[in-house]
Protein backbone atom coordinates (compact mmCIF):
# COMPACT_ATOMS: atom_id res chain seq x y z
CA UNK A 1 0.00 0.00 0.00
CA UNK A 2 1.26 3.44 -0.89
CA UNK A 3 1.83 5.39 2.36
CA UNK A 4 1.95 8.77 0.68
CA UNK A 5 -0.65 8.72 -2.09
CA UNK A 6 -0.43 11.65 -4.48
CA UNK A 7 -3.38 14.03 -4.12
CA UNK A 8 -5.49 14.31 -7.23
CA UNK A 9 -7.80 16.90 -8.74
CA UNK A 10 -9.78 17.27 -11.94
CA UNK A 11 -8.61 18.74 -15.20
CA UNK A 12 -11.81 18.84 -17.19
CA UNK A 13 -13.12 15.28 -16.98
CA UNK A 14 -9.64 13.84 -16.40
CA UNK A 15 -8.21 13.15 -12.96
CA UNK A 16 -4.67 14.42 -12.61
CA UNK A 17 -2.14 14.94 -9.83
CA UNK A 18 -2.67 18.26 -7.98
CA UNK A 19 0.88 19.27 -8.80
CA UNK A 20 0.23 18.88 -12.52
CA UNK A 21 -3.01 20.87 -12.90
CA UNK A 22 -1.46 24.35 -12.79
CA UNK A 23 0.98 23.59 -15.59
CA UNK A 24 -1.72 21.87 -17.66
CA UNK A 25 -4.02 24.91 -17.29
CA UNK A 26 -1.04 27.11 -18.12
CA UNK A 27 -0.51 25.17 -21.37
CA UNK A 28 -4.17 25.76 -22.30
CA UNK A 29 -3.90 29.50 -21.81
CA UNK A 30 -0.48 29.84 -23.42
CA UNK A 31 -2.11 28.23 -26.41
CA UNK A 32 -5.20 30.46 -26.55
CA UNK A 33 -3.78 33.81 -25.29
CA UNK A 34 -3.46 35.55 -28.64
CA UNK A 35 -6.93 34.55 -29.83
CA UNK A 36 -8.55 34.88 -26.40
CA UNK A 37 -10.59 38.06 -27.04
CA UNK A 38 -11.77 36.99 -30.50
CA UNK A 39 -12.80 33.58 -29.21
CA UNK A 40 -14.62 35.10 -26.22
CA UNK A 41 -16.69 37.27 -28.54
CA UNK A 42 -17.38 34.40 -30.91
CA UNK A 43 -18.21 31.76 -28.33
CA UNK A 44 -20.48 33.94 -26.20
CA UNK A 45 -21.90 35.98 -29.12
CA UNK A 46 -20.48 39.03 -27.33
CA UNK A 47 -22.56 38.45 -24.21
CA UNK A 48 -19.41 38.11 -22.07
CA UNK A 49 -19.18 41.91 -22.32
CA UNK A 50 -22.60 42.23 -20.64
CA UNK A 51 -21.64 39.74 -17.92
CA UNK A 52 -18.54 41.84 -17.23
CA UNK A 53 -20.62 45.04 -17.22
CA UNK A 54 -22.83 43.48 -14.57
CA UNK A 55 -19.71 42.67 -12.53
CA UNK A 56 -18.59 46.30 -12.68
CA UNK A 57 -22.13 47.47 -11.82
CA UNK A 58 -22.02 45.28 -8.69
CA UNK A 59 -18.53 46.34 -7.67
CA UNK A 60 -19.38 49.60 -5.88
CA UNK A 61 -16.05 50.90 -7.12
CA UNK A 62 -15.12 54.52 -6.34
CA UNK A 63 -12.23 56.87 -6.87
CA UNK A 64 -9.16 55.92 -4.85
CA UNK A 65 -10.07 52.24 -4.45
CA UNK A 66 -7.47 49.49 -4.65
CA UNK A 67 -8.60 46.67 -6.89
CA UNK A 68 -7.21 43.25 -7.67
CA UNK A 69 -8.44 41.80 -10.97
CA UNK A 70 -7.44 38.20 -10.42
CA UNK A 71 -7.07 35.87 -13.40
CA UNK A 72 -7.59 39.14 -15.22
CA UNK A 73 -6.52 37.68 -18.55
CA UNK A 74 -6.55 40.27 -21.27
CA UNK A 75 -7.70 43.02 -18.94
CA UNK A 76 -11.34 43.74 -19.87
CA UNK A 77 -12.28 44.49 -16.27
CA UNK A 78 -8.98 46.17 -15.46
CA UNK A 79 -9.53 48.65 -18.30
CA UNK A 80 -12.78 49.90 -16.75
CA UNK A 81 -11.54 49.75 -13.16
CA UNK A 82 -8.46 51.76 -14.08
CA UNK A 83 -10.67 54.60 -15.36
CA UNK A 84 -13.07 54.48 -12.43
CA UNK A 85 -10.49 54.47 -9.60
CA UNK A 86 -8.63 57.45 -11.09
CA UNK A 87 -5.11 58.64 -10.30
CA UNK A 88 -5.42 58.03 -6.57
CA UNK A 89 -6.54 54.43 -6.99
CA UNK A 90 -4.64 51.37 -8.07
CA UNK A 91 -5.54 48.29 -10.09
CA UNK A 92 -3.49 45.11 -10.04
CA UNK A 93 -3.97 42.81 -13.00
CA UNK A 94 -2.99 39.40 -11.73
CA UNK A 95 -2.75 36.17 -13.69
CA UNK A 96 -0.84 32.95 -13.26
CA UNK A 97 -0.13 32.86 -16.96
CA UNK A 98 2.62 35.07 -18.40
CA UNK A 99 1.24 34.90 -21.96
CA UNK A 100 -2.14 36.23 -20.86
CA UNK A 101 -0.48 39.02 -18.85
CA UNK A 102 1.61 39.96 -21.85
CA UNK A 103 -1.44 40.20 -24.12
CA UNK A 104 -3.32 42.14 -21.41
CA UNK A 105 -0.49 44.61 -20.86
CA UNK A 106 -0.12 45.27 -24.57
CA UNK A 107 -3.86 45.79 -24.98
CA UNK A 108 -4.15 48.21 -22.05
CA UNK A 109 -1.08 50.17 -23.15
CA UNK A 110 -2.64 50.52 -26.60
CA UNK A 111 -5.78 51.89 -24.95
CA UNK A 112 -3.62 54.52 -23.26
CA UNK A 113 -4.29 53.09 -19.82
CA UNK A 114 -1.05 53.48 -17.90
CA UNK A 115 -0.08 54.90 -14.55
CA UNK A 116 -2.41 53.17 -12.13
CA UNK A 117 -2.13 49.56 -13.31
CA UNK A 118 0.35 46.97 -12.05
CA UNK A 119 0.85 43.63 -13.75
CA UNK A 120 1.72 40.77 -11.42
CA UNK A 121 2.11 37.09 -12.21
CA UNK A 122 0.63 35.28 -9.24
CA UNK A 123 -1.01 32.13 -8.00
CA UNK A 124 -4.49 32.73 -6.56
CA UNK A 125 -3.80 30.18 -3.81
CA UNK A 126 -0.94 32.24 -2.36
CA UNK A 127 -1.54 35.89 -3.16
CA UNK A 128 1.64 37.92 -2.69
CA UNK A 129 0.07 40.86 -0.82
CA UNK A 130 -0.14 41.92 2.84
CA UNK A 131 -3.38 41.40 4.80
CA UNK A 132 -6.18 43.96 4.27
CA UNK A 133 -4.79 45.44 1.04
CA UNK A 134 -7.73 45.68 -1.40
CA UNK A 135 -11.19 47.24 -1.48
CA UNK A 136 -12.31 44.94 -4.25
CA UNK A 137 -11.18 41.62 -5.70
CA UNK A 138 -12.70 40.24 -8.88
CA UNK A 139 -12.06 36.90 -10.49
CA UNK A 140 -13.83 36.47 -13.80
CA UNK A 141 -13.82 33.05 -15.45
CA UNK A 142 -10.72 32.07 -13.48
CA UNK A 143 -11.75 30.26 -10.31
CA UNK A 144 -12.59 26.99 -12.04
CA UNK A 145 -8.99 26.73 -13.26
CA UNK A 146 -7.56 27.07 -9.76
CA UNK A 147 -6.37 23.77 -8.27
CA UNK A 148 -7.38 24.36 -4.63
CA UNK A 149 -10.34 26.74 -4.78
CA UNK A 150 -10.93 26.80 -1.02
CA UNK A 151 -7.34 27.83 -0.42
CA UNK A 152 -7.68 30.56 -3.07
CA UNK A 153 -10.86 31.90 -1.43
CA UNK A 154 -9.13 32.02 1.97
CA UNK A 155 -6.20 33.83 0.39
CA UNK A 156 -8.53 36.41 -1.18
CA UNK A 157 -10.31 36.89 2.14
CA UNK A 158 -6.98 37.58 3.85
CA UNK A 159 -5.94 40.39 1.51
CA UNK A 160 -9.36 42.11 1.36
CA UNK A 161 -9.80 45.17 3.55
CA UNK A 162 -12.61 45.04 6.12
CA UNK A 163 -15.66 46.32 4.20
CA UNK A 164 -14.16 45.07 0.95
CA UNK A 165 -15.94 42.76 -1.44
CA UNK A 166 -15.15 39.78 -3.62
CA UNK A 167 -16.91 39.25 -6.93
CA UNK A 168 -16.70 35.90 -8.66
CA UNK A 169 -17.96 35.75 -12.22
CA UNK A 170 -17.96 32.17 -13.35
CA UNK A 171 -19.81 29.66 -15.50
CA UNK A 172 -22.43 27.85 -13.48
CA UNK A 173 -25.47 25.60 -13.77
CA UNK A 174 -28.38 26.69 -16.01
CA UNK A 175 -31.67 26.93 -14.13
CA UNK A 176 -33.89 25.37 -16.83
CA UNK A 177 -33.52 21.77 -18.03
CA UNK A 178 -34.17 22.71 -21.65
CA UNK A 179 -31.56 25.45 -21.60
CA UNK A 180 -29.14 23.06 -19.95
CA UNK A 181 -29.53 20.54 -22.79
CA UNK A 182 -29.13 23.17 -25.50
CA UNK A 183 -26.09 24.54 -23.67
CA UNK A 184 -24.54 21.05 -23.39
CA UNK A 185 -25.01 20.47 -27.11
CA UNK A 186 -23.44 23.83 -27.88
CA UNK A 187 -20.50 23.33 -25.50
CA UNK A 188 -19.52 19.81 -26.53
CA UNK A 189 -20.27 19.94 -30.24
CA UNK A 190 -20.09 23.47 -31.58
CA UNK A 191 -17.55 25.06 -29.24
CA UNK A 192 -14.59 22.69 -29.87
CA UNK A 193 -15.26 22.92 -33.63
CA UNK A 194 -15.21 26.69 -33.39
CA UNK A 195 -11.93 26.46 -31.44
CA UNK A 196 -10.50 24.21 -34.14
CA UNK A 197 -11.50 26.54 -36.97
CA UNK A 198 -10.54 29.90 -35.41
CA UNK A 199 -7.71 29.11 -33.00
CA UNK A 200 -6.70 25.74 -34.47
CA UNK A 201 -6.98 24.28 -30.97
CA UNK A 202 -10.02 22.13 -30.26
CA UNK A 203 -8.53 20.49 -27.13
CA UNK A 204 -8.36 23.73 -25.16
CA UNK A 205 -12.02 24.40 -25.89
CA UNK A 206 -12.94 20.82 -25.04
CA UNK A 207 -11.20 21.47 -21.68
CA UNK A 208 -13.22 24.70 -21.33
CA UNK A 209 -16.52 22.81 -21.71
CA UNK A 210 -15.43 20.03 -19.35
CA UNK A 211 -14.04 22.36 -16.68
CA UNK A 212 -17.34 24.29 -16.65
CA UNK A 213 -19.25 21.07 -15.90
CA UNK A 214 -16.83 20.18 -13.08
CA UNK A 215 -17.11 23.60 -11.43
CA UNK A 216 -19.26 23.85 -8.28
CA UNK A 217 -22.85 25.01 -8.80
CA UNK A 218 -24.24 28.28 -7.43
CA UNK A 219 -25.15 27.06 -3.94
CA UNK A 220 -21.92 25.06 -3.47
CA UNK A 221 -19.76 28.03 -4.38
CA UNK A 222 -21.78 30.23 -2.05
CA UNK A 223 -21.18 27.73 0.77
CA UNK A 224 -17.45 27.65 -0.06
CA UNK A 225 -17.32 31.46 0.18
CA UNK A 226 -19.07 31.38 3.55
CA UNK A 227 -16.62 28.75 4.75
CA UNK A 228 -13.71 30.98 3.73
CA UNK A 229 -15.13 33.71 5.99
CA UNK A 230 -17.14 35.88 3.59
CA UNK A 231 -20.37 37.39 4.84
CA UNK A 232 -23.61 38.54 3.18
CA UNK A 233 -22.81 36.14 0.37
CA UNK A 234 -25.25 36.28 -2.52
CA UNK A 235 -25.31 35.31 -6.16
CA UNK A 236 -27.10 36.49 -9.27
CA UNK A 237 -27.78 34.18 -12.18
CA UNK A 238 -27.00 35.73 -15.55
CA UNK A 239 -28.35 34.38 -18.85
CA UNK A 240 -30.43 31.72 -17.15
CA UNK A 241 -27.63 30.55 -14.86
CA UNK A 242 -25.11 29.83 -17.61
CA UNK A 243 -23.05 32.31 -15.67
CA UNK A 244 -23.40 33.35 -12.02
CA UNK A 245 -22.04 36.39 -10.26
CA UNK A 246 -21.24 35.65 -6.61
CA UNK A 247 -20.67 38.47 -4.18
CA UNK A 248 -19.31 38.32 -0.65
CA UNK A 249 -18.06 40.86 1.87
CA UNK A 250 -15.36 40.85 4.52
CA UNK A 251 -16.25 42.68 7.74
Amino acid at each position, binding site marked *: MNENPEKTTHFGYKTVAETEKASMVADVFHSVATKYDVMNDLMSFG*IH*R*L*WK*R*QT*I*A*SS*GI*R*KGHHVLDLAGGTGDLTA*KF*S*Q*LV*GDTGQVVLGDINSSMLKVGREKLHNLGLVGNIDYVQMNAEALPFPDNSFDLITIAFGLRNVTDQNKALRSMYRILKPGGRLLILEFSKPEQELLSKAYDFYSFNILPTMGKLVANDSESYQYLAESIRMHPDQETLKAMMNEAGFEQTTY*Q*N*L*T*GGIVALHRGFKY
Partner: protein
Amino acid sequence: MALEENNKEQSAANSFFMLPSFVLSLIEQVLNQALKLDPSLVDKLKEVEHQRLLVEVRDWQQKIAITYANQQLHLYTAVEHADADCMISANINTLLALKNPAMLTQLIRQDKLDLQGDLNIAQRYSSAFSSLDIDWPEQLAKYVGDAPAQQLYLHLQSLQQQSKKAKSQLDSTLISLCQDELAITIHPLELVQFKQQNRALKSQVAAIEQRINALIKAL
Protein backbone atom coordinates in the same frame (compact mmCIF):
# COMPACT_ATOMS: atom_id res chain seq x y z
CA MET B 1 -50.97 38.78 -8.12
CA ALA B 2 -51.02 38.80 -11.92
CA LEU B 3 -48.97 41.99 -11.87
CA GLU B 4 -46.45 40.32 -9.55
CA GLU B 5 -46.15 37.33 -11.89
CA ASN B 6 -45.84 39.65 -14.84
CA ASN B 7 -43.05 41.53 -13.05
CA LYS B 8 -41.30 38.25 -12.25
CA GLU B 9 -41.50 37.14 -15.87
CA GLN B 10 -40.20 40.51 -17.00
CA SER B 11 -37.31 40.36 -14.55
CA ALA B 12 -36.46 36.78 -15.65
CA ALA B 13 -36.45 37.91 -19.27
CA ASN B 14 -34.24 40.88 -18.34
CA SER B 15 -31.85 38.59 -16.47
CA PHE B 16 -31.69 36.14 -19.39
CA PHE B 17 -31.22 38.61 -22.21
CA MET B 18 -29.64 41.29 -20.00
CA LEU B 19 -31.59 43.90 -21.94
CA PRO B 20 -31.04 46.83 -19.53
CA SER B 21 -27.26 46.26 -19.64
CA PHE B 22 -27.33 45.97 -23.41
CA VAL B 23 -29.39 49.14 -23.87
CA LEU B 24 -27.19 51.04 -21.42
CA SER B 25 -24.05 49.94 -23.24
CA LEU B 26 -25.51 51.35 -26.46
CA ILE B 27 -26.50 54.62 -24.77
CA GLU B 28 -23.02 54.82 -23.24
CA GLN B 29 -21.45 54.50 -26.69
CA VAL B 30 -23.71 57.20 -28.15
CA LEU B 31 -22.99 59.61 -25.28
CA ASN B 32 -19.26 59.01 -25.47
CA GLN B 33 -19.42 59.65 -29.20
CA ALA B 34 -21.18 62.94 -28.42
CA LEU B 35 -18.34 63.77 -26.00
CA LYS B 36 -15.87 63.31 -28.83
CA LEU B 37 -17.91 65.44 -31.24
CA ASP B 38 -18.40 68.32 -28.80
CA PRO B 39 -15.11 68.78 -26.90
CA SER B 40 -16.63 71.58 -24.77
CA LEU B 41 -18.59 68.88 -22.89
CA VAL B 42 -15.35 67.57 -21.42
CA ASP B 43 -14.73 70.92 -19.68
CA LYS B 44 -18.35 71.17 -18.53
CA LEU B 45 -18.26 67.73 -16.93
CA LYS B 46 -14.80 68.11 -15.38
CA GLU B 47 -16.30 69.41 -12.12
CA VAL B 48 -18.32 66.24 -11.62
CA GLU B 49 -15.51 63.85 -12.48
CA HIS B 50 -15.66 60.65 -10.41
CA GLN B 51 -18.93 61.74 -8.74
CA ARG B 52 -21.72 59.23 -9.11
CA LEU B 53 -25.18 60.28 -10.25
CA LEU B 54 -27.92 57.74 -9.71
CA VAL B 55 -30.97 58.13 -11.95
CA GLU B 56 -34.11 56.18 -11.16
CA VAL B 57 -36.48 55.95 -14.13
CA ARG B 58 -39.72 55.16 -12.29
CA ASP B 59 -41.85 54.05 -15.23
CA TRP B 60 -39.10 51.74 -16.53
CA GLN B 61 -38.31 50.47 -13.01
CA GLN B 62 -34.63 50.93 -13.70
CA LYS B 63 -31.83 52.61 -11.78
CA ILE B 64 -28.84 53.85 -13.72
CA ALA B 65 -25.50 54.84 -12.20
CA ILE B 66 -23.64 57.48 -14.21
CA THR B 67 -20.01 58.38 -13.61
CA TYR B 68 -17.82 60.66 -15.65
CA ALA B 69 -14.18 59.55 -15.46
CA ASN B 70 -11.15 59.63 -17.72
CA GLN B 71 -13.02 61.79 -20.27
CA GLN B 72 -15.67 59.12 -20.68
CA LEU B 73 -19.13 58.50 -19.33
CA HIS B 74 -19.70 55.17 -17.63
CA LEU B 75 -23.29 53.97 -17.39
CA TYR B 76 -24.27 50.91 -15.39
CA THR B 77 -27.43 49.41 -14.03
CA ALA B 78 -27.35 50.30 -10.36
CA VAL B 79 -27.60 47.44 -7.91
CA GLU B 80 -29.57 47.68 -4.67
CA HIS B 81 -28.17 50.01 -2.01
CA ALA B 82 -25.77 51.55 -4.52
CA ASP B 83 -24.20 54.64 -2.98
CA ALA B 84 -24.27 57.86 -4.96
CA ASP B 85 -23.33 61.51 -4.58
CA CYS B 86 -26.65 62.54 -6.07
CA MET B 87 -29.84 60.61 -6.75
CA ILE B 88 -32.75 61.70 -8.89
CA SER B 89 -35.95 59.77 -9.34
CA ALA B 90 -38.66 60.62 -11.87
CA ASN B 91 -40.64 59.38 -14.87
CA ILE B 92 -38.94 59.40 -18.25
CA ASN B 93 -40.92 62.44 -19.50
CA THR B 94 -39.89 64.45 -16.47
CA LEU B 95 -36.27 63.41 -16.94
CA LEU B 96 -36.39 64.53 -20.57
CA ALA B 97 -37.72 67.90 -19.42
CA LEU B 98 -34.47 68.30 -17.48
CA LYS B 99 -32.82 69.36 -20.73
CA ASN B 100 -33.70 72.79 -19.37
CA PRO B 101 -31.73 73.07 -16.09
CA ALA B 102 -34.07 75.83 -14.86
CA MET B 103 -36.87 73.25 -14.69
CA LEU B 104 -35.08 71.26 -11.97
CA THR B 105 -36.33 73.15 -8.92
CA GLN B 106 -39.79 73.63 -10.47
CA LEU B 107 -40.18 69.88 -11.00
CA ILE B 108 -39.09 69.17 -7.42
CA ARG B 109 -41.73 71.61 -6.14
CA GLN B 110 -44.37 69.92 -8.30
CA ASP B 111 -43.42 66.56 -6.69
CA LYS B 112 -42.59 65.17 -10.10
CA LEU B 113 -38.95 64.65 -9.20
CA ASP B 114 -37.18 63.42 -6.07
CA LEU B 115 -33.65 64.57 -5.51
CA GLN B 116 -31.24 63.53 -2.79
CA GLY B 117 -27.63 64.59 -2.35
CA ASP B 118 -25.70 67.24 -4.20
CA LEU B 119 -28.06 69.25 -6.44
CA ASN B 120 -25.06 70.72 -8.25
CA ILE B 121 -24.18 67.34 -9.83
CA ALA B 122 -27.63 66.95 -11.41
CA GLN B 123 -27.56 70.56 -12.61
CA ARG B 124 -24.10 70.12 -14.09
CA TYR B 125 -25.12 67.07 -16.13
CA SER B 126 -28.37 68.73 -17.18
CA SER B 127 -26.70 71.94 -18.33
CA ALA B 128 -23.85 70.08 -20.09
CA PHE B 129 -26.19 68.03 -22.26
CA SER B 130 -28.71 70.83 -22.83
CA SER B 131 -25.96 72.92 -24.38
CA LEU B 132 -24.71 70.07 -26.55
CA ASP B 133 -23.55 71.72 -29.74
CA ILE B 134 -22.01 69.47 -32.35
CA ASP B 135 -20.44 71.22 -35.31
CA TRP B 136 -21.77 68.80 -37.92
CA PRO B 137 -20.21 70.50 -41.02
CA GLU B 138 -16.81 70.24 -39.37
CA GLN B 139 -17.31 66.60 -38.48
CA LEU B 140 -18.51 65.82 -42.02
CA ALA B 141 -15.59 67.78 -43.50
CA LYS B 142 -13.17 65.19 -42.08
CA TYR B 143 -14.61 62.64 -44.48
CA VAL B 144 -15.74 64.58 -47.57
CA GLY B 145 -13.90 67.92 -47.47
CA ASP B 146 -15.06 71.44 -46.47
CA ALA B 147 -17.22 72.57 -49.40
CA PRO B 148 -19.18 69.32 -49.93
CA ALA B 149 -19.68 69.05 -46.15
CA GLN B 150 -21.20 72.54 -45.99
CA GLN B 151 -23.41 71.83 -49.03
CA LEU B 152 -24.52 68.52 -47.60
CA TYR B 153 -25.29 70.13 -44.25
CA LEU B 154 -27.38 72.87 -45.89
CA HIS B 155 -29.27 70.29 -47.96
CA LEU B 156 -29.94 68.21 -44.89
CA GLN B 157 -31.15 71.29 -43.01
CA SER B 158 -33.54 72.29 -45.80
CA LEU B 159 -34.72 68.67 -46.00
CA GLN B 160 -35.41 68.74 -42.27
CA GLN B 161 -37.40 71.98 -42.59
CA GLN B 162 -39.36 70.61 -45.54
CA SER B 163 -40.17 67.42 -43.68
CA LYS B 164 -41.32 69.46 -40.65
CA LYS B 165 -43.57 71.54 -42.93
CA ALA B 166 -44.91 68.42 -44.64
CA LYS B 167 -45.60 66.83 -41.27
CA SER B 168 -47.55 69.84 -40.02
CA GLN B 169 -49.55 69.94 -43.29
CA LEU B 170 -50.28 66.24 -43.02
CA ASP B 171 -51.33 66.68 -39.39
CA SER B 172 -53.77 69.49 -40.20
CA THR B 173 -55.19 67.54 -43.18
CA LEU B 174 -55.69 64.50 -41.01
CA ILE B 175 -57.37 66.56 -38.29
CA SER B 176 -59.79 68.22 -40.69
CA LEU B 177 -60.50 64.86 -42.31
CA CYS B 178 -61.31 63.22 -38.98
CA GLN B 179 -63.34 66.17 -37.67
CA ASP B 180 -65.17 67.53 -40.69
CA GLU B 181 -65.26 64.91 -43.45
CA LEU B 182 -65.46 61.60 -41.62
CA ALA B 183 -66.84 63.07 -38.39
CA ILE B 184 -65.11 60.44 -36.26
CA THR B 185 -63.67 62.95 -33.81
CA ILE B 186 -65.04 66.18 -32.43
CA HIS B 187 -63.55 69.66 -32.52
CA PRO B 188 -61.79 70.81 -29.30
CA LEU B 189 -64.41 73.59 -28.96
CA GLU B 190 -67.18 71.00 -29.02
CA LEU B 191 -65.38 69.13 -26.27
CA VAL B 192 -65.16 72.29 -24.18
CA GLN B 193 -68.86 72.95 -24.72
CA PHE B 194 -69.69 69.35 -23.79
CA LYS B 195 -67.66 69.66 -20.61
CA GLN B 196 -69.47 72.90 -19.68
CA GLN B 197 -72.87 71.29 -20.23
CA ASN B 198 -71.73 68.30 -18.24
CA ARG B 199 -70.69 70.49 -15.33
CA ALA B 200 -74.03 72.37 -15.44
CA LEU B 201 -75.91 69.08 -15.46
CA LYS B 202 -73.82 67.82 -12.55
CA SER B 203 -74.65 70.88 -10.44
CA GLN B 204 -78.35 70.56 -11.33
CA VAL B 205 -78.33 66.91 -10.27
CA ALA B 206 -76.60 67.88 -7.02
CA ALA B 207 -79.29 70.52 -6.37
CA ILE B 208 -82.08 67.99 -7.03
CA GLU B 209 -80.34 65.51 -4.74
CA GLN B 210 -80.29 68.12 -1.97
CA ARG B 211 -83.98 68.91 -2.44
CA ILE B 212 -84.89 65.20 -2.40
CA ASN B 213 -82.89 64.72 0.80
CA ALA B 214 -84.60 67.71 2.38
CA LEU B 215 -88.03 66.30 1.38
CA ILE B 216 -87.14 62.84 2.82
CA LYS B 217 -86.11 64.48 6.08
CA ALA B 218 -89.34 66.56 6.19
CA LEU B 219 -91.45 63.37 5.74
